[in-house]
């Protein structure tokens, strides 16, 4: 099937709205197309689906077993609810847990005002944390890794979304990042846990910094509130690859200017 040919559609109800979904698209892609807002954190268009943050849980056909909007394809006559009381409660609690896990002090963060975790808290009305932090919030849990000449890693602000891991492996092809250890001890490491500046596989492309939803990865030299990420760049790159935008069509195929990704 050529990409121009329209794909078959199926009827789906989402929050009471009857819409036509494209077969095989995910609930999340449908929701975004028809203007239904489902919060996400680890999901990023252009990267593989991870399913770690669990914020995009939705109810399907009233089933108690929740589905992930980012990973569940639509089917005909599916009835999706994205905004029940239970779902809102679950999301709020997960956001609280993320805040309670690290040292997320917006007032001292480079990403203040441009942070997806902060946005999630604001849009989901999380203004208190009901959980014991278990640590002193104003003191660093782990030293900042500023060994890279251009970028900084502050693990205290990391939410383990693995966007950086995936963008580095899947788009840049360098696979510098991995999450090491497990459970509450899991932490982002460069290569075999070396200081970032010593990671010889790092191409310093900065994609990891651009996709980071919080202030965990930032440009060196950013002051409080100065850091601006650009996660959409990945969707742009993925689409450009898919549509072979870098192919110089005028030169004909096989010419030296053809760049395939």
């Amino acid at each position, binding site marked *: 099937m050529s990409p121009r040919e329209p794909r078959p559609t199926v009827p789906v109800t989402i929050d009471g709205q009857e819409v036509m979904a494209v077969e095989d698209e995910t609930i999340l892609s449908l929701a975004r197309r028809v203007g239904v807002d489902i919060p996400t954190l680890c999901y990023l268009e252009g990267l593989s*689906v*991870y*399913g*770690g*943050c*669990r914020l995009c*849980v939705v109810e399907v056909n009233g089933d*108690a077993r*929740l589905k*992930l909007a980012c*990973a569940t394809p639509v089917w005909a006559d599916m009835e999706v609810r994205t905004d029940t009381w*239970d779902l809102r*409660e*679950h999301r709020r*609690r*997960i956001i609280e*847990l*993320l805040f*309670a*896990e690290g040292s997320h002090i917006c007032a001292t963060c480079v990403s203040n005002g441009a942070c997806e975790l902060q946005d999630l808290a604001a849009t989901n009305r999380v203004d208190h944390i*009901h*959980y*014991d932090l*278990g640590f*002193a919030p104003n003191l660093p849990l782990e030293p900042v890794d500023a060994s890279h000449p251009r970028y900084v890693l502050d693990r205290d602000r990391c*939410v*383990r979304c693995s966007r950086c891991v995936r963008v580095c492996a899947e788009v840049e092809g360098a696979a510098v990042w*991995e*999450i090491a*250890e*497990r*459970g*509450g*001890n*899991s932490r982002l490491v460069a290569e075999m846990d070396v200081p970032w500046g010593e990671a010889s596989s790092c191409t310093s492309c900065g994609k990891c910094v651009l996709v980071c939803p919080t202030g965990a990865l930032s440009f060196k030299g950013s002051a409080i509130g100065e850091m601006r990420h650009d996660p959409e760049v990945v969707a742009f790159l993925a689409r450009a690859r898919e549509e072979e935008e870098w192919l110089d069509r005028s030169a004909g195929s096989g010419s030296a200017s053809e760049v395939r990704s």
Partner: protein
Amino acid sequence: MASAIDLDDVAHTEREARARYVRRALVCTSTACLAAGAAVVRERLTAVIGEHDEVGIVPTGCPGLCSRGPLVQVEARGEEPTVYTHVDEAGATAIGRDHLGDGTPASDVATVPADLPFFSRQQRVVLATAGRIDPDRLEDYVAEGGYAALATALTTMTPAEVVDAITRSGLRGRGGAGYPAGRKWGMLAEATGDTKYVVANGDEGDPGAYMDRTIMDSDPHRVIEGLTIAAYATGATKGYLYVRAEYPLAIERLERAIRAAKRARLLGRSVLDSGVSFDLEVRVGAGAFVCGEETALMASIEGRRGLPTLRPPYPTERGLWGQPTMIHNVETLANVPAIIARGPEWFAGLGTETSHGTKVFALAGSLNDTGLIEVPMGITLREIVFDMAGGIPEGRRFKAAQTGGPSGGCIPARFLDTPVDYEHLQDLGSMMGSGGLVVMDDTVSMPEVARFYVAFCRDESCGKCAPCRVGTEKMHAFLDRICEGVGRPRDLAHLESLCRTVRATSLCGLGQSAPNPVFSTLEHFRDEYLDLLVEEDVEPTREEVPGEPA
């Protein structure tokens, strides 16, 4: 290529050799008895007897009564078997000299009657030959009818007929969830791929559970036979036995059994000259509980980090290296040879209406006798606890039994007469689980029990998804406060709401079921939680504020 084993011939020779013995001592050399000193006992017996034509000393797998090990069973022609318990070096000398030497029972060594309810109330299918044969000898297993089911399947049944037999038997997964095995076999049989895989999950990790360990170290060939039949039925050509590294004896015996089976052409190229090939190897886990979850297990086999992934796709569609894969718990597979040998109708006749067959339970906790039992599904908890395991020690009272490990729940005394099967346990807010059964007496605090299991899940969380990674940590913090007597009513309320979120939103079974011990202890023993709460707000004293001088 060496010719395939002649099963009848080997069985006949082996049985003849056995018949020459007037007396045989079966020495348990399973993990628990070895830990209690069985190696010395065996050495001693061998030294006393020396080379003897009429007396045999057989190292065996586990007969079950682990709390009274090391065990030595003496069988003499024309005599009821004697079960010696707590045998030490002196005991072994006495047994060797008296009972094996001249046939008079050793008077100074403790015994239990061979018809002790612990033994006589059992119905052994999976453990039929465990504790009866030398796990390191293929011939021993063959003499008991081993590999006959495989031969039957290969020579008289089509793969579809084997799948059908498993379906009709009603066998359900013994790893916990109870998924119908026949359905899984059918899905793999229908799946297409370059290579299909079958995997035995021996990553048993629930606290207090040792069913699979015992099956593997006591009767490794039974697992191999079950897996090979599964491979034939589904068209799989490659298999893995995934065993946790903490089971070195099981690993050693499985590897030895695989080598023996390969030499006998019961594995490898053209199994028993059937033209069907099946290759099998052991993969050793690296110490993560979550690798018992099937998607994490597959990642581990592939050499990746043991993290669960999203399902669908299910392993039977896309599993190991993207190929169709079927994963079964060790005990499930160990049921297969008997189902083929004795017929699905026989198996379906065991147990209850919806839960067919037997279940192996690992008894632990406050019981007079602990160890491994295999009982028909539907037996009551009371029969297990009081009739078979001899009740609670030191006159204390039965309080609750935890089934299903950290994913399960507790069953209080008033449900002692509930039949133990998949449905009834689920109705009680617990689950069958893999078969760990931990009994608690009236000295045990149930919030403490919940705290213990939640700590286990927190430590074993892989960290991939937020609700489990952080949620179990915070659940534990609330339970800490409650158990330490500084919890307030709102702590309990937050704990409960957090548990609901962790259950509803976690990625894999580990996180989804981590709140179960909290829910079930709250359901049956809420008063104990309430008694621990303090009504007023307890402010930290000056000394407790971190970083500030008192």
